[in-house]
C-alpha cells in the first residue's frame, strides 16, 4: 500500500464530512425511522407497517404511480421542446449569438422557481392574461379553466426543469461534426434519417444526462405541484410533506421518502438500460 501524504488526508476531511453528515447519517436516520412503528400499547417497535400502509391506502399508491408517469411524461416533453432549440443554438446560428441567447434562456433560473410559478398563475388564471386575450378577440365567451389542474402543473414542472435538459444536450451537439451530417446526406439519407440515425444517437449521452436531471427535479418537486396543481393534481412529494408536517407521522413519511427514492432510482436504471447508456458516461 502506497503511503499517502498528510495533505491527502487533510483534503479528504471536507469530502467525508459532507458525505457522512449531510448524506449518510440523515439517510440512515430516515431508514431506521421508516421501520419504526408505535403499537397500540404506545411502544415503539420494529415493523413493516409504515410500508404496508402505503399499499393499503389506494390514494397513496395511485399518487405514486401518477407521479412516476407524469415525471416520465414531463421528461419526454422537455426533450421534445428543447431539442429544436438546442439544435438551433449549436448548429444553425453563430457561436457569438448563441451564448447570448443561452444567457437569456437562463433568466428564469436567476429569478427562482417560486416567482416564475406565480408568473404562470398570472398567465393561466381565469382572469389571467391568456383568458383575457382570448375573450377580447372573441374566440371564447367564458374563461377556460387552465389553473389548478394537471395541465398547469405539467406546464410549471416543464418550465422549471427544461433548461437543465438544454445545457447537456447543447454540449453533446456542439461536438457533433457537421461533416457527419453532410456525409450521411451524401450517402443518400433524408433529413429525417439523419435526425434519427446520426444526430439522436450521437446526442444520446447528453439527452440521457439531461433527462436524468429533469426527471429527478420533477419527481422531487414540491412547489409546482402544490401551487399550480392545486387540490386536484396530487404529487407524491405532497404526501410526504403531509406525513411530516400535517399528521406529524415522521416514521410513515420516512418510509414514503424511501419509496420515492427507490422509484426514481429504478426508473433511471431502466431508462439507462433501455438506451444502452452507462451511468459513468452520462454522469461525466
Amino acid at each position, binding site marked *: 500500500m502506497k503511503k499517502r501524504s498528510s495533505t491527502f488526508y487533510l483534503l479528504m476531511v471536507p469530502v467525508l464530512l459532507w458525505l457522512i453528515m449531510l448524506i449518510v447519517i440523515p439517510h440512515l436516520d430516515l431508514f431506521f425511522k421508516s421501520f419504526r412503528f408505535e403499537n397500540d400499547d404506545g411502544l415503539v417497535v420494529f415493523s413493516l407497517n409504515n410500508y404496508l400502509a402505503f399499499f393499503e391506502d389506494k390514494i397513496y399508491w395511485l399518487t405514486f404511480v401518477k407521479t412516476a408517469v407524469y415525471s416520465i411524461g414531463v421528461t419526454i416533453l422537455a426533450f421534445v421542446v428543447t431539442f429544436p432549440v438546442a439544435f438551433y443554438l449549436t448548429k444553425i446560428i453563430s457561436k457569438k449569438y448563441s451564448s447570448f441567447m443561452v444567457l437569456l434562456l437562463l433568466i428564469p433560473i436567476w429569478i427562482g422557481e417560486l416567482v416564475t410559478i406565480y408568473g404562470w398563475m398570472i398567465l393561466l388564471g381565469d382572469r389571467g392574461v391568456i383568458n383575457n386575450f382570448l375573450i377580447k378577440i372573441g374566440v371564447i365567451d367564458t374563461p377556460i379553466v387552465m389553473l389548478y389542474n394537471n395541465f398547469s402543473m405539467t406546464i410549471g414542472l416543464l418550465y422549471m426543469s427544461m433548461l437543465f435538459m438544454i445545457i447537456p444536450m447543447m454540449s453533446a451537439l456542439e461536438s457533433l461534426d457537421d461533416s457527419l451530417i453532410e456525409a450521411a446526406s*451524401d*450517402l443518400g*439519407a433524408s433529413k429525417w434519417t439523419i435526425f434519427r440515425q446520426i444526430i439522436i444517437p450521437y446526442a444520446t449521452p447528453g439527452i440521457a444526462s439531461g433527462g436524468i436531471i429533469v426527471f429527478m427535479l420533477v419527481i422531487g418537486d414540491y412547489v409546482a405541484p402544490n401551487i399550480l396543481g392545486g387540490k386536484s393534481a396530487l404529487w407524491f412529494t405532497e404526501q410526504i410533506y403531509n406525513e411530516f408536517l400535517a399528521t406529524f407521522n415522521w416514521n410513515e413519511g420516512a418510509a414514503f421518502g424511501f419509496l420515492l427514492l427507490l422509484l426514481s432510482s429504478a426508473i433511471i436504471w431502466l431508462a439507462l438500460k433501455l438506451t444502452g447508456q452507462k451511468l459513468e458516461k452520462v454522469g461525466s
Partner: protein
Amino acid sequence: MSYVLEIKDVTKRFGDFTAVNSVSFNVEDGGFFSILGGSGCGKTTLLRMIAGFEQETEGDILVRGESMRGIPPEKRPVNIVFQNLALFPMMNVEKNVAFGLQRQKLPKPDVESRVTEMLERVGLVGFEKKKVTELSGGQRQRVAIARSLVLRPSILLLDEPLGALDRKLREHMKVELKLLQKEIGTTFIYITHDQSEALVMSDMVAVMNQGRFEQLDTPKNLYKNPATSFVAGFVGESNEFNITTYSDGVLETENGCKLKKPGLDFEPKKLFMRPEAFILNPSADLTDIERIKMSVRTILFDGSNTKISAIIDQSQDEVLISLPQNAQFEDLKEGDTVVVGIDYDDLKCYRG
C-alpha cells in the same frame, strides 16, 4: 469519348469573394483526376459543388451528361470521402459501410453481400464488428472509402483524405489508393495541396490558383513543361529568379547573373531551374548548354535526395543542385569551385 463529369464555366461567389472563377474541364470515365492547389485556392469549394453541398453561382455541372442543377447531395450519383473521414462513431465498421445501401432500401441479403464484398476489396475482413474508434488511421481511411464505393458511384470525390496520416502511412496509402482505383475502375477526383500525392496517383492533374485552373495536364507534362510561373513554382522544387533584362538571347537576373537562353519571343520576367536539371562539371563536348561557375556553400545530405547549395560566382545568387545517385561527387566539400551546366531547354522562362 464520353465524359463522366463535365464542368461548364462554373463560378462560385461568396458575397464579394469569388472562390471559383469560370472553371471548365471534362473528366474521362475511369480516370484518376487530381486538383492540386494551395489552401484557399477554391479546390474544396469546387469539390463541394460537385457533391452538391454548394450551389454554383453560374455555369453547370454534368454527371454522365445529366445536369446536376438543383439535385440535392443525397440524389447525386457522386460520393465523397471527407478530409476528416466523417465516419459515424456510434456505428461499427459494417454498419458504416451498410449505411448508404440501407438508404436505398435494398433487401437485407443484398446489403450484406455487398458489404462483405466491399470489405474484402479494401482488406478489412474480420473487422466488421469493430468500432471505428478502435481502428488505425489507415483502416479508418479504408472504411471511409469502402462506405462510399459500396454505392457504386459514377465518381468518387476525395477531399485530402491522406492529410491526417503520418508520413510513412501516407506514402503507403498513395500506392494503395492508386491500385484500388485501377482495380475497381471508378473515376476518382482527388483534391490535395500535396504535389507528390497528385503526381504519384493521377492520370490527369489540374493545378488551381485563385479560383482558376492554371494548367490541366498529365503529371509528367506538368512537371516537365509547366505552363505558367505559378505551376513551375508550385509543382516540384525549383530555383526561382526574377529576370530584369533580356537582349540578344541573354537573360540577366536581378542580381546580375547573365545566362544564355536563345529564341525567346517574349519579355521574360521569371526564370525557373529544377535542381536535377543541373549537370555538375559537364564534359566539354556538350553543346546547347549554359555553363555557370559556382562555389559550394553547403551540402544538404538527405539520402537519395541529397543536394548542394551553391553560390553563383557572378551574382552571389544561391541555387540548389541535386547530386547524381552515383558516388561520383561524394568528396565534394564546402568551398569547392564547380562548373555547372544547364540545358537551354531547362531554363524555363515566364512572362510573370
